């Protein structure tokens, strides 16, 4: 069982993510380690794991470690957790995070749709190439439309 200090636990239980965003702003290295452990532990609830990934995705100056922690659990995540993972990787925004997004094409259209959102946040050449490809070739109409919409927004 991962030990969690009181303020972080309250933030993880809060209805909205405001308190967790405050934890990220405070930047306590111990909290970062706890969040990383929560992402990795098989005992972590879906809600805590999603919130922990979301917080890691916003954590400044620890991007590679955050991306690595998320990638390490990707194969065993539920669909809704994978959606959160895609979102967090998009916020991390580094080339390493982008490469994880490009490697982890999912069978689930909603996960690919979120990957499009994440790649659009990164917006470098490789990310935009992937979005263009998904806009043309993805099996899901919903994903193609999302990719086309984001391309159109970026062009305006």
């Amino acid at each position, binding site marked *: 069982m991962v030990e969690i200090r009181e303020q972080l636990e309250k933030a993880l*239980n809060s*209805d909205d*993510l405001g308190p967790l965003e405050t934890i990220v702003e405070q930047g306590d290295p111990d909290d970062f380690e706890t969040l990383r452990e929560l992402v990795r532990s098989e005992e972590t609830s879906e809600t805590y794991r999603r919130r922990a990934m979301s917080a890691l995705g916003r954590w400044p100056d620890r991007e590679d470690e955050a991306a690595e922690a998320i990638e390490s659990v990707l194969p065993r995540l539920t669909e809704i957790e994978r959606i*959160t993972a895609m979102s967090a990787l998009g916020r991390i925004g580094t080339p390493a995070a982008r490469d994880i997004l490009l490697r982890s094409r999912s069978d689930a*259209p*909603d996960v690919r*749709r979120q990957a499009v*959102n994440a790649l659009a946040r990164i917006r470098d050449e490789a990310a935009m190439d992937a979005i263009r490809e998904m806009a043309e070739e993805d099996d899901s109409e919903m994903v193609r439309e999302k990719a086309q919409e984001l391309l159109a927004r970026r062009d305006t």
Partner: protein
Amino acid sequence: MASVRNTVRSCLDKSGTISLREDVLGVYGDDNPQDRSVLDQLDRIRNDPFVRVALVTVRPSGSTAGQDGDLQRDLDNTNRVYQNECGGWVYPVGSRVVNTNLLGTNVLLDQNDCSGNGHSVSDEEDDLFDLGRDMGADIVCYFINGSTGGAFGCAAHPDGRRGFWTANSSPGRTPWTFPHELGHIVGDNGHVSDTDNLMYGGGTNGITDPPPDLTDPQCNRIGGDEDLETC
């Protein structure tokens, strides 16, 4: 009945056919087993300050599911707290289901942050908060399935489009999530550490001794809100 119609028309701006259930009592979902007196409600409409809220349930394209299943519970709980603690009440102007893949088939919002200050609006939040703006209330509540970050609600919103969302199927949404998020909007109330208070910041599932309280300063802020009106 003429008195009812006149009150609803003059105080709530409702015209045409008046539904006692929806337009007067503000009941849009399953009728919770509680006392609903038309006379008391008319008295409330005529005398007590209220805020209008529009209710929008977002479902994926093709879904035949109706409005959020706990919508009426949330409305009743909100009125229970706001009436008992502050003497004000919430008037739901209507409930609408919108079928769209705007947030994917999982109906999860990709939100940049949930910050009251310096909030950054994502493309999806921008699209979501356009919905329901023609329903007759400045404040719109969106019932979605949650956010990609795993929140159960959030009151951060685009400038000029007041509103909040709550998760309609997430395990963490509690009977107090709706009134809590509304409390961030109406009166701009922040989190507090008192576990008996509606605005407790450690999660409404941690609220003790429900129904939760609101303090006088919180009620004063609610009373001074720009969207609070009286007949």
